[in-house]
């Protein structure tokens, strides 16, 4: 129920997950600022994946796209 609610709350542009719904990262853009994880409604430490250029593989991820939306450096995107 809570997850459904959170998906409604996420911004329109990224509320619809693209690709396979997983969040990929370009590690060379990441400055480890932590804005991503701060905005994650599920409390996932997205920075730990982003800085290493890894796709977020945490089971809690609901593909809301908040982290992609808020990243100031264009590090995160939907995995295609």
């Amino acid at each position: 129920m809570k997850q459904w609610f959170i998906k409604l709350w996420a911004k329109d542009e990224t509320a619809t997950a693209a690709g396979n719904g997983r969040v990929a990262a370009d590690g060379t853009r990441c400055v480890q600022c932590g804005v991503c994880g701060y905005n994650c409604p599920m409390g996932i430490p997205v920075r730990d994946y982003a800085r290493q250029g890894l796709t977020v593989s945490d089971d809690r991820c609901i593909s809301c796209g908040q982290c992609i939306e808020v990243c100031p450096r264009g590090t995160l995107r939907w995995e295609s």
Partner: protein
Amino acid sequence: MIMTTTSYLIIGNGAAGATAAETIRQRDGQGGITIVTAEAYPMYSRPGLAYVATGEIPPHQVIARTPEWYDRQRIERLQAEAARLDVRARRVGLADGRSLSYDRLLIATGARAVPPPYDGGELDGVVYLDTLDGTRHLLRKARRARRAVVIGGGITALEMAEGLARQGVETHYFVRGSSLWSKVFNEAESAILEEKLSQHGVIVHYRTEVSEILGNWRGKVRAVRLKDGTEFKCDLFGVAIGVKPHLGWLQGSPLQMDRAILVDDYLQTNVPGVYAAGDCAQVLDRWTGQYMLDVLWPSAVAEGRAAGVNMANGRVPYQKGIPFNVCLLFGLHITAIGQVNPHRDAADEAEEFQAISRGSSEVWFTFPRHYSSAWAAKGPNTLRLVLDGNKVVGALIVGEQSTADALRDLIEYEADVSGLKPFLRADSDRLKCEILKFWKSGEWRERPPIVISRSF
């Protein structure tokens, strides 16, 4: 049989130092790793301080490693200030009198903000956006401040102005020249950015230079005196006039230095066993053929990683990438890659000395041999290419960012873009479409980037 372990000593706990330590641990499970840091915090994101200043994230959120991470990695973290280097004894002397020995040493002490070159810099109300403590102090001061003046050309000054405006302080940005950061932005790009500053309530004053910071009887900032002799009232003075590599403590050491510590393609200095990485290191830049300073977070991470590999018995030349930065300023995305100076040569630009700003590279300000440029704009979305003959050597992208990855690759690979030349005067949509088509065709990949290793 006695197993000897290597002792690794790293001075500096920023992007380069922490990454080097992590890399060493991956390669050497036994060696002792010690990081010496002057700050009380675990490694934190310095670029993230901009988002602390705007209030988007709380200060603690920029801390990128936990104390538990250091424990798990078996990295000892020591809070102290390095004061002396004795390469013969292989020891680093600390300011508190202790000294530490090493088998392999990494100097990753970074850079520090330059204070104003005139009186008043020690007054209460002078703030910086350079360290976590300094940013916390800025936020505390901003809560009670009514009017701020910000000085400096470069990303940090703009971030500070944005942060203070968002904190509700009436913010005035004093610019010495007649446009914003003229070494990087052309007039049109500067105008777009200035419009954004105005929309966010920042008042820009061109050709305005401070000559002194004035304080009241309580030692607090009350105004600044300008070069024309007039006074401008303010109670907060934000300084972002660049940074200088922190090298003072290495005076008298045999390390070869220029604007920073010179290192070879293995990040080693002229002293065997001593390495340098990050904002205090000058690395050979293959595009300009010179030893250049990048004050860029991704460069520091990559250099730290390369230093870590080579310190832990690797022998892998560092593949320096093309210096690039993408930032979000006043809601505008800006990407700068490679040689982006909008001037044709040094004679063409007005003399404007300032120490290098964080978030930039010396390479950005240089000039290609056979300069030409292309420009396309659609509203606030602009694209400027700098070419050297048939190669794109620089790109400055404002707003819409669809071509950023493509241009980074084409510049990195020194791709022959003769196929794009017919479209360089096309409209913005057409030019971007052709760039993406050219990039996706992959023909430019046939020639891999040239790598020549050099060691001291």
